[in-house]
């Protein structure tokens, strides 16, 4: 058993922490939350130069060949910084899907560009059913000579409004199972028939409604195999979910530290409020929440990195961590009182981000249902 990163990963993680502390002050986070674009090009460029945008891609595609544990280390620090932005949509959802399903040419071309910070991608999976299950895919793509014609509405698609390409997951055939007959298309966002509407959301994530109205896409733009996109979608969701868990762990750890620091400094009734057992119990509960989140996430990531079955562990990690992050930040709000409630404070950023993260990629209820299936129920 080893609950820690190795020395190299620790150095990398510390480097990431130092970078975000310097380059991502909370004033920038607040700007990213408020700004419609949400992905400042200077920061994006610096992250590309550090090799982080290609961290998990193999070297032949311009990446650094890191594994999921390296990604966990980086994501934890991004979560700690409460950093929004296009890493999630581009590097993870879009990039990993291409890595999992794409042709050599697609991988070489697109991933190299992502790594250099020259391309914004997103994956258009979810629809009005707001579900990450295959049954939620109702958008259709109908064959028309050398093209496909896509029609349907994609919902909650991150960064679609600034993406160069949207990877649209569409139904190409009615299969016997909802998982059959699903295909992925690389669609230029500027294609005729695409309408993108930015939705206002709690953490300022740039979620969009993307309407495909008879959008013509060349058959050459299919990513992976016709009718068989669901397996790589699932694999991508597993990887991205692990990354999201790590982001939540980093955020929850920071929220806990902020609450504890406040409890040590804030004096009421002539003593630091941290001497009150009521506050100590809240902090103890948060510590237990954060530690459990971390261990479940690490164990799931380790299993994934070893190629072991880990569907159960991922469901446990996301189900628990989603709710634990929310609880930890709500506790933070309680401990900080009024200052946590103002927009001048930083706790509010974590409090809102935690709820968005909980709902993203399947909340506790969704994950427990997935886990129940894995347990043979």
């Amino acid at each position, binding site marked *: 058993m080893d*609950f820690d990163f190795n020395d190299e*990963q620790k150095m990398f993680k510390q480097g990431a922490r130092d970078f975000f502390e310097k380059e991502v002050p909370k004033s920038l986070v607040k700007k990213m939350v408020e700004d419609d674009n949400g992905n400042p090009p200077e920061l994006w460029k610096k992250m590309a130069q550090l090799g982080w945008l290609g961290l998990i891609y193999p070297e032949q595609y311009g990446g650094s060949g890191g594994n999921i544990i390296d990604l966990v280390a980086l994501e934890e620090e991004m979560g700690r910084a409460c950093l929004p932005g296009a890493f999630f949509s581009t590097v993870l959802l879009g990039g990993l899907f291409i890595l999992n399903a794409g042709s050599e040419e697609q991988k070489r071309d697109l991933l190299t560009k992502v790594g250099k910070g020259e391309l914004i991608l997103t994956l258009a999976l979810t629809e009005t059913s707001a579900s990450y299950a295959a049954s939620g895919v109702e958008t259709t793509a109908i064959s028309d000579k050398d093209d496909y014609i896509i029609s349907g509405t994609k919902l909650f698609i991150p960064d679609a409004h600034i993406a160069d390409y949207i990877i649209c997951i569409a139904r190409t055939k009615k299969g016997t199972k909802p998982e059959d007959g699903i295909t992925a298309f690389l669609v230029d966002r500027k294609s005729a028939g695409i309408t993108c509407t930015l939705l206002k959301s709690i953490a300022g994530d740039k979620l969009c409604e993307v309407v495909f109205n008879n959008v013509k896409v060349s058959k050459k733009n299919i990513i992976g195999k016709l009718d068989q996109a669901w397996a790589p979608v699932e694999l991508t969701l597993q990887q991205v979910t692990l990354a999201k868990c790590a982001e939540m762990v980093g955020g929850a750890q920071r929220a806990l530290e902020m609450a504890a620091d406040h409890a040590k400094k804030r004096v009421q009734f002539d003593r630091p409020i941290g001497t009150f057992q009521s506050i100590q119990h809240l902090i103890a509960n948060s510590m237990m929440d954060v530690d459990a989140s971390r261990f479940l996430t690490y164990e799931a990531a*380790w299993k994934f990195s070893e190629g072991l079955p880990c569907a159960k562990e991922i469901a446990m990690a996301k189900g628990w961590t989603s709710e634990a992050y929310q609880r930890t930040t709500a506790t933070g709000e309680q401990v900080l009182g009024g200052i946590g409630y103002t927009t001048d404070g930083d706790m509010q950023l974590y409090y809102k981000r935690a709820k968005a993260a909980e709902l993203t990629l399947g909340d506790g209820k969704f994950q*427990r249902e997935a886990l129940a299936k894995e347990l043979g129920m």
Partner: protein
Amino acid sequence: MEFKEYKIGEYDTEEQKKFRKEVGEWLDKNITSELIKGTNEIRVTAYIPGQHEFAVKLGEKGWLCPEWPKEYGGAGLPAGYRSIIAEEIGQRVVFGPGFLGGLTGGVQGPTIMSAGTPEQKKEWLPKIAAGAQFALGYTEPNAGTDLASLGIRGVKDGNDYILNGQKMFSTGAHFARYHWLAVRTNPELPKHKGVSMIIADLKAPGVTITQLTTIAGERTNEVFYDNVRVPQTNRIGPEGEGWSIIRMALTAERGDLGTFPWPKILVNDLIQYAKETKRNGKPLSEDPFVRQSLAQLATDVSVLRLYNYRVGWMIDKGLDVSWASSMVKIFESELSQRIANQGMTIMGLYGQLEPGSKYAQLKGNMELAYRAMVVRSFGGGSNLRLRNDIATRGMGLPREPALAIPVKK
């Protein structure tokens, strides 16, 4: 990062493999069906029938304290062999807390080994290694979580102490021979300073033991001392240093508890039960409430396992585990209660049926656990108190200032 599950025997040397085989064969001959049945029932505090006889047999082999030198009744085996014996026992019976631990000198042995005089080691260690039974004498009516306010008096008289006072919740005192007793030997000093640790003979004149019955149907005791003489040579450590001895013993006790097996067993039982039990023509496992509830409990069991492994990992690294082991204790005790509570809810009206009752589901284990697991939330340290420690030691919050109230004389 590495989360490989340890498989029993995986890292054995050739010598250890041979020893493991020897232990296994011996256990197969000497573990009685009575003992297997006893450990397979949910028991929290009470004596398991056949436990003492089994401990004595283990003691004859030197396997109760295998790493001790032979002169103290051990087997003189290197470190690591103790866990082989524990693992092999665990393969055959459900290894719950108290079993071979608190009641057989597993707490007192290590403490005397580090704090006893050469004469005391010669006197007590062989007895402990042979399976002598001890009851703990810490708690009193007015000294629970605040143990240092204990009031039982020990007054020097010649070569003896004369003891007067009362101990409470002294599990096993009605069958154990010895009482591991925290006594106030100097009431003039601040409360942590005037305490001494003394081994008393529970069969001595002046000791009265009365029964208290827990809601789990098990016996614990009140023990009254009325002018009971104990030789001063039975005091472990210097006079007035009892508090540090208690801390030493509490550490040994925690180390001896091992992994509490019930949460995992009960949750697996419940999952199986939900799959096999039909209500209104449908398996319980198709009910969304049941699915959610059991998936959460299964996650919690994993959390408990990981908290536990983390403590082991920290010990290997030589880190202070006090608050990390408190997390294990808190989570385990509260999880055990949640499992029983939700298990009964899942069963509906059947949930309230006691073990042995007609129609009882899962042998009535959820109902029994609902009663029995309550003790774990305050026994071995109140969860409320332990949460203070987690916040102060683990997160550096300032301690609550103590009120200066002197010990009542």
